[in-house]
């Protein structure tokens, strides 16, 4: 596979000049098709032939298009009109978004048609694997940050570095720092970020007003102790007692002060206490004192301070800032649309820290199948949908995403929907601050070492017991460390 790709790249470069010549020669747009057929017969290697087809077609457009053509001549391969098989996870909404991206893409690439497969489910991996098993794997698909690493380790995704390297449309400086992390394995990119962005704390201004408390400052980083005290004043049981009152009933809470993210955001608290998840040597010191302290602090928010919902006491079913029963919630930018859907006034600030400031965020990618027949076309579309100005603008207009392109940042910040601009800036402060931004696996160059989904399933039962108060982290830390390191080494959960 890799051999083939190298040959192709050489061919691209070799033929670049020739194609430019051909493009110039093919000034009469309607003659194009004839030329195509001839070259197909003559061409020994289909790659060269295909390029001619594509470029001439586009030349038939306006002068502006010609400029694009010159750029794309280097990278384009494909067989005349081709069909890309795109596999989409997510429901109807996502399908609609993808449709509009495809429609726009086809305006400039009329020779590409799309066959879309869509599953309406949380877990897309089995559907993807079945398609591959049947020999009908999609050319590109919408993946999740949980699964990309693993699919990469198993050879399902394609290394996109060679494509990015020669893509004249791609300029590293156009994009915000760190946006590639969740698709990084072995220091390379195996997908391009499609949604969502940074994580930070969100607070419901109404609940602050009701309690008569000043809003947190978006620029100030709160310490752990401070936020616990603040959260206590924002936690109420059914009789309006706070955890500071003697009659407080922890099992009858109607509003909680604080909801830390115990899922994708959990690591932030570990770094915020100067603990480490994955060291550069691949060890996972999950039994260090600092680590234990951070985990127990998270558990104590619910068990000791009663300011966070925990399965041990939680009464209400759905808890969250948009449900109106959480005053401060650790969210991702992906919650933005949901919060705004219920008309809540809200603001943001950075995730609190203990000894070191830490911030985090991630995107879920579009990936290219390693065995696709049309690697370049698939890459081109994926790049368009994720990294081009026009493609990404669709997502930004929908308010779906924190744009990775710097030239779309202003549009995100000045969006009239809540939160206000100064709060929206918090997402960028979290993502772009090289001093505070961390990601799991950054020291080994692979997001969660490539095993996020398996690690989640391994940690789940231990975390459940921790949140329930059945164990303290030190009771299980050694076991978790050993199991996690085993997974990182072998990918085996046991």
């Amino acid at each position, binding site marked *: 596979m890799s051999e083939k790709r190298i040959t192709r790249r050489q061919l691209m470069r070799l033929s670049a000049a020739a194609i430019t010549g051909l493009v110039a020669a093919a000034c009469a747009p309607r003659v194009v098709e004839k030329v195509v057929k001839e070259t197909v017969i003559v061409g020994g290697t289909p790659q060269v032939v295909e390029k001619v087809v594509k470029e001439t077609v586009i030349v038939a457009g306006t002068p502006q298009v010609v400029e694009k053509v010159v750029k794309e001549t280097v990278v384009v391969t494909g067989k005349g009109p081709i069909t890309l098989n795109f596999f989409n996870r997510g*429901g109807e909404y996502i*399908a609609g978004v993808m449709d509009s991206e495809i429609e726009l893409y086809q305006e400039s690439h009329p020779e590409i048609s799309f066959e879309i497969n869509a599953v*309406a*489910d949380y877990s897309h991996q089995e559907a993807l*694997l*079945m398609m591959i098993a049947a020999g009908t794997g999609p050319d590109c698909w919408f993946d999740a940050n949980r699964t990309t690493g693993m699919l990469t380790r198993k050879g399902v995704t394609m290394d996109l570095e060679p494509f990015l390297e020669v893509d004249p449309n791609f300029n590293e400086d156009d994009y915000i720092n760190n946006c590639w992390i969740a698709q990084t394995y072995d220091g390379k990119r195996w997908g391009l970020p499609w949604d969502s962005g940074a994580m930070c704390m969100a607070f419901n201004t109404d609940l602050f007003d009701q309690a008569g408390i000043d809003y947190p400052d978006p620029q100030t980083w709160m310490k752990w102790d401070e936020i616990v005290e603040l959260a206590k004043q924002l936690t109420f049981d059914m009789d309006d007692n706070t955890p500071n009152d003697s009659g407080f009933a922890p099992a009858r809470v109607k509003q909680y002060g604080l909801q830390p993210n115990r899922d994708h955001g959990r690591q932030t608290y570990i770094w915020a206490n100067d603990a480490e998840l994955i060291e550069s040597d691949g060890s996972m010191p999950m039994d260090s004192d600092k680590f234990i302290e951070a985990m127990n602090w998270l558990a104590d928010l619910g068990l000791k301070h009663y300011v966070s919902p925990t399965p041990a006491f939680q009464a*209400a079913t759905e808890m969250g800032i948009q*449900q109106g029963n959480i005053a401060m919630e650790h969210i991702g930018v992906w919650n933005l649309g949901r919060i705004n859907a219920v008309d809540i006034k809200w603001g943001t600030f950075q995730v609190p820290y203990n000894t070191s400031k830490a911030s985090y965020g991630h995107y*879920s990618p579009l990936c290219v199948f390693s065995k696709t027949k049309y690697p370049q076309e698939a890459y081109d579309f994926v790049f368009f949908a994720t990294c081009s100005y026009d493609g990404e603008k669709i997502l930004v207009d929908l*308010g779906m995403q924190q744009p990775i392109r710097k030239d779309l940042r202003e549009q995100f910040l000045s969006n009239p929907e809540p939160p206000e601009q100064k709060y929206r800036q918090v997402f960028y402060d979290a993502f772009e601050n090289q001093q505070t931004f961390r990601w799991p696996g950054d020291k080994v160059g692979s997001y969660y070492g490539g095993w996020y989904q398996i690690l989640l399933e391994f940690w789940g039962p231990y975390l459940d017991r921790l949140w329930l108060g059945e164990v303290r982290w030190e009771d299980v830390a050694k076991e978790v460390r050993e199991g996690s390191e085993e997974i990182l080494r072998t990918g085996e959960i046991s």
Partner: protein
Amino acid sequence: MTRPPIPFGRMLSYIALIGGSLLMLMPFYWLISTSLKTLKNIYVYPVQWFPNPIRWQNYTELFAEVPVLLYTRNTLIITVFNVIGTVFSASLAGYSFARLRFRGRDLVFSILLATVMVPFAVTMIPLYVMFSKLGWVGTFLPLIVPPFLGAPVNTFMLRQFFRTIPMELEDAARIDGAGRPRIFLQIMLPLAKPALTVTTIQSVLWGWNSFLQPLIYLRKNRLWTLALGINSLGMFMPGVPDTTHFQMALATVMVLPPVILYFMAQRAFVQGIVLTGLKG
């Protein structure tokens, strides 16, 4: 005044029935009331027992934004074929396994039943590969053809029913010179009406509510069923607005046809008694 007092046993029955009905009604009530709430009120805590305000727009907006009729049509296609296929193949095979004596009968039955014991998770891939090679993925065929080729669970059930029908009825017909097909159609099928009703109801439900199979094979939005639509509306996806209120509205819409159908199917049970009573 002169009416005799209700017997104690009967009164107990009523109390149990009414109390139980309330319990059983609960999930359904919750479904409907949630479908009429504003998005915000769905999450109000403590729970809002009665929607206030009632938001009928959930339904109008649902029909405007989601292709409900298309989904209904797709679901209907799958359901109708399922019912016909299941009743056809299961009643024939059930009768044959129960009442006819021939070599290999019990072996085939055992194998048929054994295939039900293999967890679906491991047959999913080979089946998918097979249907994919046939070019059936992305069509209704993988969902509507197999029922015609046997429905092991329903076959087993009907076999059990057929085995309890008194032998004398069949013997008498046989002495009159009736062949097996006639006995099956004119004697056994009418006698098994309650069981056939159950089979029908179950295959209606299977077709109407099935989720995993359509999820696997119907990869095009235009082929989606109501169940897939509901799942799509209830998903938490990054960047996607919350549509729980639409989800509940669609679920309510989806529940109504089977409820009506089930209510009407009750008659078959009443008739069932009459027939078996007369002939038995």
